[in-house]
């Protein structure tokens, strides 16, 4: 069945039971339904094996737009319902799709929209920075809010409790022992065995969605590049893609290739860091030292060629901020040849190491069923058999002119997640070489056109952690009305709660690192 067939079939099925208005929104289909059918739609979508990918709301005049994004076979559908803001409620989709759970809780906290029948409607993003019954993303909520002098700690969050002889709790965080982001983990354990883990995130919520409002495109792109610092290229690209759609702008081919090179460089840098860190968490320091060395060399090339080690602000609305000279292309290619040689040596040493084998194989197991149910993305999903990659399934420029090899594993353990990362490094290196060969002459930036008020766009890209979905709506005068970035971490964090079960507490750091969710990208 070709991809266009399933949407037509599905639409025909739906029309039997509910009113669906189909609106063409650039290359994505927008289906608008009545709010009471919200859950029913999810049930039918589940039967048709659609994947729930993102959910968010918007406050437009006196109404709420509630959006959800679904995907199947690389085709995306934007589902929308519009309700009045006086008594906002609608049936929950989280009852059908566990992946929608935290997203609906976020919408509940930020907009005050009630999802009826939600399996767990405790607050999620809200701690104590704003009071109950006030909702930051409503248009009448001031950006400055009404903060008290010192925001009190979030003492009374109703954590799940364990009872029974011999079980005990370990609270960890928000300030962790290493150089990492803050978040809280609550373990219930018997002896060393983890019975249950509950995540409490939201500590680095810094109001990104709210402070985006009223920005102009360039300023929004800068903010998007700081949603999650390790994914600056990914988020910036998704946001620019969404804005370019809204404005009806095509990016020059040369700029697309450079964007591709930037994104793949980001992927390689992060995977190298992670492989080293995973090995380090099981005390194999050799790999950590080798990979941090290789990563440093890679970042130095970033600084030489692109002027920034982490590649921040290189992607701008309409194109890219920096061109690639011929010398730079030669330098990058030479570096790749050398890196391959080094990787061959280091990875062989890792592969043949029995202490790594002991610690990484079978640990942190995530089954294919759970990965599918939670819509797990990127290397975490792919290590548990989820063969998904936006670059191949819904290719955007420049990936529409390349063959993307997607590494998949089926063991679902930490070792699989490590090997998927390694395969992704190799594939990314080939892509970079290909993009350099295909690099056409020409402009690196299209001129910006002010989009009409109310126009919207979706940006969907494969960041290094997995699929990023970004929605942007414009107000009049080139101003942003709504910015919603869905980092892959949002869907991957719940998988961590599952994959640590029946592992020992001392293995938590390596389990966590093998998933490496972004706190900032989740908390917004």
């Amino acid at each position, binding site marked *: 069945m070709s991809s266009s067939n399933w949407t037509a079939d599905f639409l025909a099925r739906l029309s039997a039971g509910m009113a669906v208005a189909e609106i063409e929104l650039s290359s994505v289909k927008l289906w608008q339904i009545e709010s009471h059918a919200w859950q029913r739609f999810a049930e039918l979508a589940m039967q048709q094996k659609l994947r729930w990918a993102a959910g968010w709301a918007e406050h437009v005049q006196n109404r709420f737009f509630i959006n959800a994004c679904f995907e199947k076979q690389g085709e995306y559908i934007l589902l929308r319902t519009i309700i009045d803001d006086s008594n906002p409620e609608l049936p929950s989709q989280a009852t059908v799709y566990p992946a929608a759970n935290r997203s609906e809780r976020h919408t509940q906290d930020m907009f005050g929209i009630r999802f009826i029948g939600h399996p767990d409607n405790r607050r999620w993003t809200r*701690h*104590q*920075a*704003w009071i109950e019954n006030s909702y*930051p993303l409503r248009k009448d*909520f001031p*950006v*400055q*809010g*009404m*903060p008290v002098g*010192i*925001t*009190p*700690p*979030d003492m009374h969050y109703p954590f799940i409790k364990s009872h029974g002889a011999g079980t005990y709790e370990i609270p960890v965080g*928000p*300030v962790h*022992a*290493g*150089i*990492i*982001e*803050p978040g809280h983990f609550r373990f219930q354990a018997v002896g060393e065995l983890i019975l249950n883990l509950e995540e409490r995130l*939201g*500590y*680095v*919520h*810094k*109001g*990104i969605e*709210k*402070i985006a409002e009223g920005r102009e495109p360039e300023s929004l792109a*800068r*903010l998007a590049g*700081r*949603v*999650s*610092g*390790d994914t*600056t290229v990914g988020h910036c690209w998704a946001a620019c893609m969404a804005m370019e759609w809204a404005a009806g702008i095509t990016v020059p081919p040369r700029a697309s290739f450079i964007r591709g090179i930037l994104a793949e460089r980001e992927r390689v840098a992060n995977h190298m*860091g992670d492989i080293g860190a995973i090995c380090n968490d099981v005390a194999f320091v*050799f790999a950590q*030292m*080798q990979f*941090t*060395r290789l*990563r*440093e060399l890679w970042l130095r090339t970033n*600084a030489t060629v692109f002027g920034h*080690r*982490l590649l*921040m602000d290189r992607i701008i609305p309409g194109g890219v901020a920096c061109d690639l000279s011929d010398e730079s292309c030669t330098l990058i290619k030479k570096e790749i040849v050398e890196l391959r040689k080094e990787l061959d*040596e*280091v990875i062989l*040493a890792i592969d043949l*190491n029995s202490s790594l084998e002991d610690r990484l194989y079978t640990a942190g197991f995530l089954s294919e069923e759970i990965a599918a149910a939670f819509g797990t993305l990127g290397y975490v999903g792919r290590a548990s058999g989820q063969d998904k990659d936006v670059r191949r399934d819904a290719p955007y420029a420049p990936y529409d002119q390349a063959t993307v090899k997607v590494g998949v594993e089926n063991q679902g353990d930490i070792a699989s997640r490590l090997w998927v990362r390694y395969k992704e490094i190799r594939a990314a290196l080939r892509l970079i070489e290909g993009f350099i060969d295909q690099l056409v002459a020409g402009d690196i930036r299209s001129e910006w056109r002010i989009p009409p008020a109310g126009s919207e766009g979706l940006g969907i890209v494969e960041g290094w952690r997995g699929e990023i979905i970004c929605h942007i709506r414009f107000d009049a005068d080139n101003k942003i009305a709504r910015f919603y970035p869905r980092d892959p971490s949002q869907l991957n964090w719940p998988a961590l709660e599952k994959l640590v079960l029946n592992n020992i507490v001392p293995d938590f750091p390596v389990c966590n690192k093998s998933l490496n969710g*972004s706190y*900032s990208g989740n*908390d917004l």
Partner: protein
Amino acid sequence: MLRIFKKILTTGVVTERFKTPKDDELEQLGIEIKRHIDKRFSGSIAIRQVDAGSCNGCELEIHALNNPFYDIERFGVHFVASPRHADVLLVTGPVSRHMQTALLRTYEATPNPKWVVAAGDCAVCGGEFGVSYASCGAVSNVIPVDLVIPGCPPTPLALMKGLLGLMKVSA
């Protein structure tokens, strides 16, 4: 095992070394830091890093200080797991309101004498996030700051320089 030894041997020492005193900024910096550390902290300074709301970009560069090129530990600077062991708090990010109490408590838990370094534009002035219903902005809005290291994020070299600056401030 032989493979590992072979790779270690062929990689050699990449740690950036003293070439000529003027050229190699890094080595010079390190040595100056070390002199100050020797004098003021009996040879070693313990840093507790606190992410108070950063985008994680700053953390990546702080991590890099421990890679074999910079290897900041050779100068007696090391990162510790608890504020109770720390001389210096290295704070990143705008302070999110949800982290405000945690940061204050971390500060209180650090024994005197202590110094606070705000690293990264966000920590210095609020950066791209500023002050809002969710963010307190600069670290100095929450706890006293002794030194700032600007940059988004500051490079490892800038961080080394900044720490040297701290030694001078506190001298």
